[in-house]
């Protein structure tokens, strides 16, 4: 099944979401503080931050649920303030916990939304299959487990075959198999040329699916960029060596090694990974023999904690 009823959108660069100085204040509290967000078409963009960082408020502003105090937003090359109906017709969303009419079945909730959005009912059965709810489609929503509710919300978000998906905690309540399916679904959406903006506290998943991320703290952007670059995957090297002090002194003099940090018999270098062999040779020439030289892998979780703690302070 193709997620969209229309042909998959063309990925021709450009921005799917663009905000300039987007701000939301609730009295003296700045929930979102001059946010400049750029989401490229066809990418999976992770929107991260601790609770209360302003992620959901930003998503609500993009969807027209909350009015910005200042700034502007564009989605799919249209102005959110002026062309919201046209934008929402091409956007699917899940905001916070999944909400539906409790007295309607899963299928009837989708039928109701199909009427709201002007979509044909024929779209519903394949979507229920896709989210593995076909067997429970006639059960009332109020009898669903959290995972089932979340899957129904995913089906609802995909109902119009949107070009852009804004998903707030889509993995919330899903079991491990459901989380894997969600990851595969997002990859599939990307392969079809759709753009996904996702917020989640399951950082391991974000690390696996997102091309780029943004981290918000207290409504402000503290970092944004490619996951690969931010985690320094190609430029952080770990050297384990017995005479670490001598090795540190030697490597600190090498111009293309940007930073050397010693901790016990371990050295952490900021240097291109492809020059690992060169580093080994330099050490060996001074009769310093490394027990191990490898790429240092920093997890997004650790990076997130470092960044948010620094941002908060």
């Amino acid at each position, binding site marked *: 099944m193709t997620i969209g009823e229309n042909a998959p959108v063309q990925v021709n660069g450009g921005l799917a979401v663009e905000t300039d100085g987007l701000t939301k204040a609730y009295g003296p509290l700045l929930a979102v503080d001059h946010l400049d967000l750029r989401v490229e078409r066809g990418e999976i963009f992770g929107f991260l931050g601790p609770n209360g960082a302003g992620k959901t408020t930003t998503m609500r502003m993009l969807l*027209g*649920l909350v009015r910005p105090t200042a700034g502007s937003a564009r989605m799919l090359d249209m102005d959110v303030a002026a062309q*919201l*109906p046209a934008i929402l017709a091409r956007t699917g969303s899940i905001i916070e916990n999944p909400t539906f009419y409790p007295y309607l079945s899963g299928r009837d909730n989708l039928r109701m939304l199909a009427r709201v959005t002007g979509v044909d009912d024929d779209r519903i059965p394949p979507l229920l299959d896709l989210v593995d709810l076909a067997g429970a489609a006639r059960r009332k929503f109020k009898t669903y487990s959290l995972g089932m509710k979340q899957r129904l919300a995913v089906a609802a978000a995909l109902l119009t075959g949107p070009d852009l998906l804004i998903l707030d905690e889509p993995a919330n309540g899903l079991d491990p198999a459901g989380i894997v399916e969600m990851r595969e679904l997002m990859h599939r959406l990307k392969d079809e040329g759709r753009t996904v903006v996702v917020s989640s506290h399951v950082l391991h998943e974000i690390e696996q699916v997102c091309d780029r991320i943004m981290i918000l703290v207290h409504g402000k952007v503290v970092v944004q960029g490619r996951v690969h670059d931010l985690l320094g995957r190609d430029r952080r090297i770990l050297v384990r060596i017995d005479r670490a002090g001598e090795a540190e002194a030697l490597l600190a003099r090498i111009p293309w090694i940007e930073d050397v940090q010693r901790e016990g018999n371990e050295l952490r270098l900021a240097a291109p990974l492809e020059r690992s062999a060169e580093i080994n040779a330099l050490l060996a020439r001074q009769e310093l023999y490394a027990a191990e030289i490898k790429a240092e892998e920093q997890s997004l979780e650790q990076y997130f904690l470092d960044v948010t703690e620094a941002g908060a302070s």
Partner: protein
Amino acid sequence: MSHLLAAEWLKLRYRWMPRVIVLIMLLIMALIMWGISTSNQRPNVLLPRSLILALFFASAFAPFLWPVLGGSWAGNEYGWGTVRLILSRRPNRVQWIAAALLILVAVAFLALIASLVVGAIAGLIVKGLTGEATGSLQDPYAWIVVKSFLGAWYVLIFYLVLAYSLGTIFRSGAVGIGLGIGITVAELIVFGIFNGLGGTWRDIADHFPYAYTQALPNRLVREGTTSSFADIPSHSPSAVASVIGIAIYLAILLGATMLVVTRRDVTS
């Protein structure tokens, strides 16, 4: 707009509350008509007067029944969080409110049709049991029935809108229902006090929504029933004044609702 109406209609079809409210209304109506049929007011339960009587009772119960539907229809959208489900897909908030209200207006219409059926059945049963002659639905009764129907519909709509507005403004079904009914109870108390005080106080009380929503059906039922059925105080608002008074209250309620809904952030 038609898409939203279709969605509201689907919601209505699967909701039990409107049916329960209509059933309660019809049941009470039938019991009261049965009681009247055993009194000296029995001619009013014969056709075609029984139709007018049924519509009158539908109006009389309205302040205590229809706020339940209006308040919950609006407030539950906030309680369940479905307001963001809809508005994140169809952002036109005025259309969203209008579609919901139109569906409620349609429910009130259907409830009054059912009331007419109950009135007709009651009339036929009383005729069958007593053998008393019934009249025909010709002038002046046809026109009185039409006027009574429209008047009752208007009163039902007022109480639906009252509770819907309160449920929306306070984002709570419980508040919508509670205030929707509570306002009428408060009015009844103050109305009694002001009437007792007389003079200007009584004139003020005659402009209460309850005064208008009771005066309108009272005036209409008086036209179609025996003269002893409905006793109307001379200072009570006329039918025309009631229609205008209710319209002003409706305009205020709808204006406040639209203003709040279009300006407020959806944070539910």
